[in-house]
């Protein structure tokens, strides 16, 4: 074994084309305003360099340079900091540490493992702690796939380690390295031990990557495959593509978090990165308590083993909330590069925007709309554009994707505010949650008239699920639209004002809403619905509509048709036993047809 320190990410430049020598500066605090601190005497410091502030060495980042003045945002509470306190610049930007050990973890916004922040029975998050982001002691069984003499380049697979039961963690050649494998060290190793030597230089498993920089890929791919969410309203009417992005705007209590958590549990992603950004501590506790006990049916492993949790709750420092989104997306890209389909949930992107706003206002920048900085749109774009389906760098050939699902919490539930509007332009899916629907306890409270999906995924569903998927999907969307228009008439004139034919439309709309779109996340059997089951249910509703219309043609009174007791059976479709769906569907369709014709 060589004695040189193994390279974790030795030649990935800190910024593209700008490798430089690291100089550390030390200066003095001159101004403190909440999380924004200014210092002088830091001549070599550059934008986005990491700083250590004060006696407690609080973690911070340079956000503005103004003459001699270096302005920083500090990721920890600045109480007690004094003018004249020391500031040390590290000469490096904020890095994520990437490698085995991320899955199953819970991290703060700057990727500090929360388990290391409260030791010795301390309940609270102590300040100034700087534990390694990745565990340095744990050993992983490295299984190489390269041999001495192989020529390798960026992104090539070197080997893998089993990271839990769900995911095989693939170790790739770091960006910027091309050469010949000169040694291979199989077997247990920590993330910083050398596992392969390339041209005589040891390479370890851990990579470091600047949070704010997107990781490189070989190619971007068109988005043609859906991320199956298990939520009927989404998969049927507003599907999101793997590699696409969706936003969930909604007032308080409309179900953003429940939906984000349902997606984290049931969507068919390989890896889930869940970022609790400026929201409740209890919601993360809930995930922490629940996920280890839930088995992922696709892998047989606990859900937690495919999940990375990032928690910067509303009472944790604001600047770290801003960083949490970047920590999340960087980790997501890292698993994407290994060839996985990753879903990233961000609850809530509004809190991230507000963190930007708070820091901006302390910088006394000229605000644009609603006090948000003028660069809000650029920052949002920079985030959502990191979603995508890609051809990964290196061999063997593989594809991966990052899908982003961002919750938005508009002030007063009013979607005209800047975060909703700017995100709307970037995201391919708009899943608008509606306060009125949630008051009616119609969950998920996705407003089917207001929401949209821009991804053309019909071809995939028709091919993989059933050829009648897209015609039925169009039928359902139109029926809901018609029902909506008729409801307006009813609320003014009463149902008697409608023609018999229209009352059938109304009844079908009701069945679609109540028996198909509604889906409780707290119902064990129905919390997630596979597309095959969804299609079977949809066919039954469609057939029921046809049976009602033909009964009407036979001269049956409309009130007898809409009140037929067999229609209540539609509400029981969600209780069909999972392995008996086709039979149940055929059986119910037949019963409805029979009862309608015997009226």
């Amino acid at each position, binding site marked *: 074994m060589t004695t040189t320190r193994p390279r974790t990410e030795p030649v990935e430049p800190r910024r593209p084309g700008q490798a430089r020598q690291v100089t550390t500066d030390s200066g003095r605090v*001159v*101004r*403190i*305003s909440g999380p924004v601190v200014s210092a002088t005497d830091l001549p070599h410091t550059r934008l986005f360099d990491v700083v250590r502030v*004060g*006696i*407690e060495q609080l973690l911070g980042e340079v956000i503005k340079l103004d003459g001699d003045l270096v302005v920083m945002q500090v990721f920890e*509470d*600045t*109480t*007690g*900091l*004094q*003018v*004249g306190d020391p500031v040390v610049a590290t000469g490096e930007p904020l890095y994520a540490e990437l490698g085995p050990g991320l899955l199953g973890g*819970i991290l703060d916004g700057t990727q500090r493992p*929360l*388990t290391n*922040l*409260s030791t010795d029975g301390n*309940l*609270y*998050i102590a*300040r100034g702690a700087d534990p390694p982001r990745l565990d340095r002691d744990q050993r992983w069984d490295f299984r190489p796939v390269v041999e001495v003499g192989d020529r390798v380049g960026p992104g090539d697979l070197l080997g893998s380690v089993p990271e839990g039961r769900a995911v095989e963690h693939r170790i790739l050649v770091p960006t910027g390295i091309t050469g010949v494998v000169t040694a291979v060290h199989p077997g247990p190793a920590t993330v910083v031990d050398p596992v392969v030597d390339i041209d005589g230089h040891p390479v370890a498993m851990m990579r470091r990557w600047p949070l704010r920089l997107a990781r490189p890929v070989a190619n971007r791919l068109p988005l043609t495959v859906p991320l199956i969410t298990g939520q009927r309203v989404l998969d049927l009417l507003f599907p999101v593509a793997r590699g696409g992005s969706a936003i969930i705007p909604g*007032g*308080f*209590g409309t179900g953003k978090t429940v939906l984000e958590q349902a997606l984290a549990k049931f969507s068919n992603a390989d890896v889930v990165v869940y970022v609790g950004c*400026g929201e409740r*501590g*209890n919601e*993360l*506790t*809930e995930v*922490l308590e629940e996920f280890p006990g839930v088995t992922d049916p696709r892998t047989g492993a606990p859900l937690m083993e495919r999940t990375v949790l990032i928690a910067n*709750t*509303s*009472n*944790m420092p*604001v600047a770290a909330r801003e960083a949490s989104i970047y920590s999340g997306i960087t980790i997501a890209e890292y698993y994407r590069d290994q060839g996985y389909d990753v879903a990233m949930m961000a609850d809530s992107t509004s*809190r991230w925007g*507000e963190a930007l706003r*708070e820091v901006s*206002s302390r910088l006394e920048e000229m605000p644009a709309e*609603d*006090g948000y900085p003028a660069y809000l749109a650029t920052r949002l774009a920079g985030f959502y554009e990191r979603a995508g389906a890609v051809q990964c760098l290196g061999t063997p050939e593989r594809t991966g994707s990052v899908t982003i699902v961002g919750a938005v*919490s508009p*002030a*007063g*539930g*009013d979607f005209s505010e800047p975060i909703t509007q700017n995100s709307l332009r970037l995201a391919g899916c708009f899943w608008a949650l509606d306060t009125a629907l949630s*008051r*009616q*306890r119609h969950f998920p409270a996705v407003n089917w008239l207001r929401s949209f999906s821009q991804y053309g995924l019909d071809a995939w569903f028709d091919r993989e699920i059933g050829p009648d998927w897209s015609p039925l999907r169009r039928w359902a969307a139109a029926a809901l639209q018609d029902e909506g228009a008729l409801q307006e008439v009813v609320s*003014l*004139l*009463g149902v008697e004002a409608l023609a018999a034919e229209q009352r059938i439309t109304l009844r079908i709309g009701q069945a679609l809403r109540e028996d198909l779109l509604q889906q409780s996340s*707290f119902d064990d059997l129905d919390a997630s619905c596979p597309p095959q089951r969804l299609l079977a249910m949809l066919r039954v509703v469609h057939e029921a509509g046809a049976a009602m219309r033909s009964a009407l043609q036979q001269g049956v009174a409309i009130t007898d048709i809409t009140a037929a*007791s067999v229609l*209540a059976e539609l*509400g029981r479709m969600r209780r069909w036993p999972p392995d008996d769906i086709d039979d149940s569907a055929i059986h119910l369709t037949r019963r409805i047809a029979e009862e309608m014709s015997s009226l």
Partner: protein
Amino acid sequence: MTTTGARVPFTVGHRTVTRVAGPLIIVDGMDGVGYGELVEIETGDGPVREGQVLELDRSLAVVQVFGGTAGIGRRETSVLTRGRAARTGVGTDYFGRVLDGAGRPRDNGPQPVPDDYRHVNGLPLNPITRAHPDQFIETGVSAIDGLTTLVRGQKLPIFSGAGLPANSLAARIAAQARVPGDDGEVVVIFAAMGVTRREAEFFRTEFLTGGAAARSVLLLNLADDPTIERLLTPRVALTMAEYLAFEQHRHVLVVMTDMTAYCEALREISAAREEMPGRRGYPGYMYTDLASLYERAGRVRGGAGSLTQLMILTMPDDDITHPIPDLTGYITEGQIVLSRELDRQGIQPPIDVLPSLSRLMNAGIGVGKTRDDHRGLADQLYACYARGREVRRLMSIVGESGLPTEDRCYLAFAAAFERTYLGQGPARRTLTETLDVGWQLLAPFPAAELKRVSAEQLAHYHHEASVTATDA
């Protein structure tokens, strides 16, 4: 919990006040003071006031003065630093006492002897040390116990309107709250901000007379007390509560009223600092500020105690989209909404159950916690009442005679539900009584109409009435 690291604290320093503006003073020569620290302001005459450092810029410090800035001049004023952030004493010696908004006795009693001192801002609870709240609290109020169940460690606000009886509802909950099968007493810490003398008297009688005194603390910041002191009141209360809940393993209920007064103080400071105003003049960081209070509710792993918060806020103009209820709703775990219409009809407590919600209800109810039918019954009552209200709205358009019989049944249900279930008056109901009243109200409906409850529960609890609903 020291925040100043290895620095030696000191208590001297005379500095020049260069500017007095509203609740703020700007002091020159303030080296050696930490951000967020507490300072003392002496004016030669009058009491020593306390202030907190809001911003430091070289030798200048912006200080918010809790006691108000009246009488502070540029000359005869000196500012002393003690090298620490605002603290409060904590411990059981405060029980039965009335304190002012900053935590000092205001009842002429002796100085309490604290167990310890704690910084009032606290520190964020680490999510990994939290335990998810799941223990049912019986409040004796049907609308809450039955439909918006409160659990230990929850934060649940009461959205009220001017003149609605939110304070008496909160006092009632505080007095009656108990956990069935657990005789552990509930400690109540009441933080009143901007209240009138009449209200203060009400709280004093409610909490500090009789048996409750032995387990209550009352913090009073009156309407004519310095507004800025209100920024401290909930923090002092929560600091005392955290100590009792997480270190002494007590069950603590913190009632904070009125959060609207608190937010106004926040706005006042923000305006004085000439910050960019957000919606309706409230500062952009109000969400974070409120969260730093509300998130202090909870339970921790391995600890027997809990910190439950009930906060009352008055919705300006009964507007639920106003920033104060809006931001609160985004942080808390549900809300209880009071209705002016019900209040006018004399229905007490006037809780509008449709917009009310307890997000932690599911975790606290059901078999082994309350009763098997709790969830289903709640959903059914909610659905029937929502339908009844919808019919009532429709009736105002088409007239009662235009309604189908079925609809009339819902109309009658809605009225009966408001009268009996909601309008229980001062009587206390056990959970069993609450559930029974619910089933009685459903009696007029045929079983087939009740789709939210399971067949077994219908068989067990539903006793279809022989009379028709329209007679009810």
